[in-house]
């Protein structure tokens, strides 16, 4: 029985364009590579436009869930197809649109097994979109897993360094996470006694006893947290990043890791607020260890992608710290950081990918002097590194600042540690930039060409997003606040 809706189903259209892209690609012959790429670009562009439209069309004064679509799906189990967007979901949808589109454009030069690659990417991204918009636990889990398993092939087929090991490790690790999530979800659904997977219905306060919340939350936290790179479950991430091809790294670090954090937020925190408060201290501890640990390990890496991988661990630690504060500011900062970090790593990986494609090395020992031979490419790398350091007027600064302030308020010691990690983070990011871009130009890289305009488009988009949200952070924060303020004020 459909529940009537009066508006165009925007959210489903986003999903639909992914699925349509997937199907169209499946029916294009393997050898028509350009056609496949164009279809991918158009379909991903549509998703970007739609998500951007939704981001700006969202009525912030009204808040809450908007663009809701709801159908009964399996009534006997209480499963419904229930999509909606709120202040937490919309930034993530926008992020996914951006990263997806730019990721597709970044892979424009791909020549091997093009069809399968883009088909899998579409599959993966439809999972990601679904995860961010779904309000039904059944579908959340489905989308969650759909976005994970294509990773295996994407890394193992098109990857590089130790790709099979990395792909296997990553897939098993992440699905081990989902092995905790599924029991927890079922547990909650069963214990609620509502016989429904409807997240909104389950969010009703008093549905779960404190014990149930604590119990389910820790499972959800670890399960989703593995994907978010929570220390000590992070080791899949650098290995995976290193092995993955560029676009996959972008989507993976840019979006997939956010799925983990978003899952903690959407399922864990929404359903088990008391469990959240109970475990918050542990979350903060792990997050801070992740922040500090990530930068220190990153400091001694020589592979560019390893460096970024560990910086991701550190940055996702900031997200975790924000979530652990149980404050409006913390939530704001965490979600903003998810967005900012997503765009930033996407930029990072796309520039590293470009450099790797040309120089065939990712080792910062071998690289050097790229600013002379490819100033634009290294420029992108530098911008990404600066964003990673948290330079003001680039998006992640505001996010980090907000998180630091709120964590300083709640956990002074952790706040101090996190702020101190900034110094090391600067040290290691700049070390990378210095070894890669600076120094005397090397003979063997002298003939390499710089980023052409066409290939530069995705990077330009990413840079401009970073700068725009760096200059006008309020656009994002206002959006997130529509969700975070009511949520926190509704806490018992």
């Amino acid at each position, binding site marked *: 029985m459909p529940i009537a809706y009066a508006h165009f189903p925007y959210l489903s259209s986003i999903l639909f364009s992914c699925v349509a892209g997937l199907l169209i690609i499946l029916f294009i012959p393997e050898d028509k590579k350009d056609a496949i790429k164009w279809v991918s670009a158009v379909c991903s562009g549509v998703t970007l436009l739609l998500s951007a439209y939704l981001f700006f069309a969202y009525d912030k004064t009204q808040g809450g869930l908007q663009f809701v679509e709801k159908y009964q799906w399996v009534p006997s189990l209480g499963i419904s197809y229930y999509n909606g967007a709120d202040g937490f979901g919309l930034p993530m949808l926008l992020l996914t649109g951006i990263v997806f589109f730019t990721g597709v454009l970044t892979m424009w030069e791909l020549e091997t097994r093009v069809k399968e690659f883009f088909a899998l990417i579409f599959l993966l991204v439809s999972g990601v979109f679904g995860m961010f918009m779904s309000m039904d636990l059944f579908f959340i889990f489905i989308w969650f897993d759909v976005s994970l398993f294509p990773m295996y092939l994407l890394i193992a087929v098109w990857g590089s360094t130790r790709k099979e090991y990395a792909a296997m*490790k990553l897939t*098993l*690790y992440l699905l081990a996470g989902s092995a905790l999530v599924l029991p927890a979800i079922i547990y909650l659904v069963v214990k609620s006694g509502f016989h429904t997977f409807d997240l909104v219905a389950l969010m009703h306060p008093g549905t779960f006893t404190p014990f149930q919340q604590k119990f389910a939350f820790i499972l959800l936290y670890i399960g989703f947290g593995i994907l978010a790179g929570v220390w*000590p479950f992070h*080791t899949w991430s650098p290995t995976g990043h290193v092995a993955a091809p560029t676009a996959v790294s972008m989507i993976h670090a840019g979006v997939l890791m956010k799925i983990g954090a978003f899952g903690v937020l959407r399922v864990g925190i929404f359903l088990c607020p008391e469990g959240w408060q109970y475990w918050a201290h542990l979350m903060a501890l792990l997050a801070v260890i992740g922040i500090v*640990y990530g930068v*220190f*390990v990153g*400091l*001694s*890496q020589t592979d560019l992608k390893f460096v970024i991988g560990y910086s991701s661990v550190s940055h996702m630690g900031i997200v975790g710290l924000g979530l652990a504060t149980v*404050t*409006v*500011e913390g939530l*704001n*900062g965490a979600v903003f950081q998810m967005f900012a970090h997503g765009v930033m790593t996407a930029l990072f990986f796309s520039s590293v990918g470009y450099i790797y494609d040309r120089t065939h090395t990712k080792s910062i020992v071998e690289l050097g*002097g790229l*600013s*002379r031979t490819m100033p634009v490419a290294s420029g992108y790398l530098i911008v990404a590194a*600066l964003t990673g350091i948290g*330079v*003001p*007027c680039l998006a992640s*600064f*505001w996010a980090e*600042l*907000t998180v*630091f*302030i*709120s964590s*300083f*308020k709640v956990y002074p010691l952790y*706040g*101090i540690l996190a*702020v*101190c990690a*900034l*110094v*090391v983070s*600067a*040290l290691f990011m*700049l*070390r990378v930039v*210095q070894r890669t*871009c*600076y*120094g*005397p*130009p090397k003979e063997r890289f002298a003939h390499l060409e710089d980023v052409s305009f066409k290939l530069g488009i995705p990077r330009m988009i990413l840079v401009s997003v970073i700068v725009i949200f760096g200059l006008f*952070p*309020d656009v994002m*924060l*206002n959006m*997130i*606040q529509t969700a*975070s*303020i009511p949520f926190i004020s509704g806490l018992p």
Partner: protein
Amino acid sequence: MTSTPISNWTVLMTAVTAVLPFVAFLLIMVFTRKNERLSAGLSIGAVSVSLAGALFLIIQYRHLTTSVQYAGKWLVSGFITIPVGFLLDPLSLLMLTIVTVICFLVQIYSLGYMAGDRGFSRYYAFMSLFAWAMISLTLSASLFQLYVFWELVGLSSYLLIGFWYEKFSASEAGKKAFVMTRLGDVAFMLGLLLVLMNLGNLDILKLNSPMVTAVMSPGLITLSALLIFGGVVGKSAQFPLLTWLPDAMEGPTPVSALLHSATMVAAGVFLFARLFPFFSHSATAMTVCLAVGTISMLLSSTMAMVSRDIKQVWAYSTISQLGYMIMGLAAGGYVAGVFHLTTHAGFKALLFLCSGVFIHQYETNDMFDIGRKGGRHLKTPMICMVIAAAALSGLPPFSGFFSKEMIMAQLAGLGNPIWLTAGLAGVFLTAYYAFRLIFIIVFPKEINDEAAQENSAVHGHEETEHHHDREMAWPLVILAAITVVLGFGKKMLQGFLSGRLAGVEEMAGHHSDWLLYVSVSLAVLGLVVTWMEFGRRKAGQIGFVERIPALKSLFLERWYIDRMYRRLLDVVIYRGVSNICTQNDNRVIDGSIDAVCDGTVKSGRMISDLHLSMIQYKLLVMFVAVFFLALYFFF
């Protein structure tokens, strides 16, 4: 101290002043990287408009008695509100003027200095970025905003120091500068957070108002003041974070003139002055600041005594002069500190720009080389440099004399004579190293002089005509003029500044009679010693410090501070924590995961092998299992 709303016209003017360089930066980065002339034009155009704006503002508000504030909201996130706004008061107006004037002059100068460099457009883009950040920093109404631009200033410093990125030392220096200032910034930020938690607000006016003591306990004030002072230490290269500044001289000389002497490093002192009332709530904090300033001043002066690198000497001198400013401020001399900041900006920029001419001409930083190659024949820069050096040494009637004398008076007003003694020792050292440099260049050793003179007379003159363009010359002249004149504007400036802080200043002044003579005579003594050692015809050009090897290496090695940091970094950070974390990642975390996986596979192999046994064993297992299942029931 209420703030009065400003008229829209002023807001617009201030906004334009602040934002225009940023627009220039974006335009240059995005569009005009290929067109060098246009880039330079954009940048200089923007900065000249800012200069005009600054002059307009300072003239409009020359009789200002209360602060003028304009604030809007930039970011709201829960209880955190990050405002954007302008705070116009004498200090910010003064600083604004200094910044824009020197920016403008340096950018003009750079037209000549940077001509032909591959990164010309990039240079101007970064210069514009710096101008934007620095101007906005001076105008900030809240500490948040100030922090934001503080970081941005650090960023542009990083970019400009490492401008010649192909040199390893340059990029290394840039990194060092960024990381070391970051270290201070972290303290700064923690201080901010501490204040924010207790005060709920980071408005500068609020922070400076007396009500702070009502909200925060004295201990808290001291702690947060010291943390904020950490930022000052980092940015102004004070002890113990002072070693980045000499290295920062790897950047182009105009950059050193602008960022690393006149403006950016002075931002630390500016912050100190900005929060002067806040700091003065805590005597402990003030004493610590005083000690830090003094130590930095003395240490860097000694380092300057043995350096052969012309820019390094000025870098050390910058540190020591910043130390003076901090001493002045910490001693309670608000006007003294700010006044010294002003005069220092002028004469230090002049010193660097003059050195830049020499370096540009002779392509060496070594003062002995410059002397040998005939440095004294470049008349204009040489004269300007002598003027500036005299100002630096505190010789009358140049600007430095007046400001330094004010600081000394302030120090004399303190109970403990140790500060004054240190300050006076500093005066002697300053004169010594400043004129050591001058004499080495002006009176080079005879042996090479003839040939070099020939060489440069013929060769150099042509090039002088060629290189020594007007755009490089007249900023020098203007700055020299300012250096000469500025000292006499002391009263005016005092009046302008203390319109706001009238009460603070009155205690100083009555020591000045004897102090004046002591101070000047010490400077002259320094001059004479230098003359004996370097200037006169038979001089060996070996300083008295250099005769003691231990002392010489101590000073040359910067009191081993750098080495200590390096070791600390290598041993503790890289080989210690970082290594431990990496090993932990590989061995413990990954190792245990791999062990689990291996264990799974191994047990799988074992179980699989068990299935290969003879049929009767399987039957036996079946029966036994059934037996045990039944047995289980009875327990």
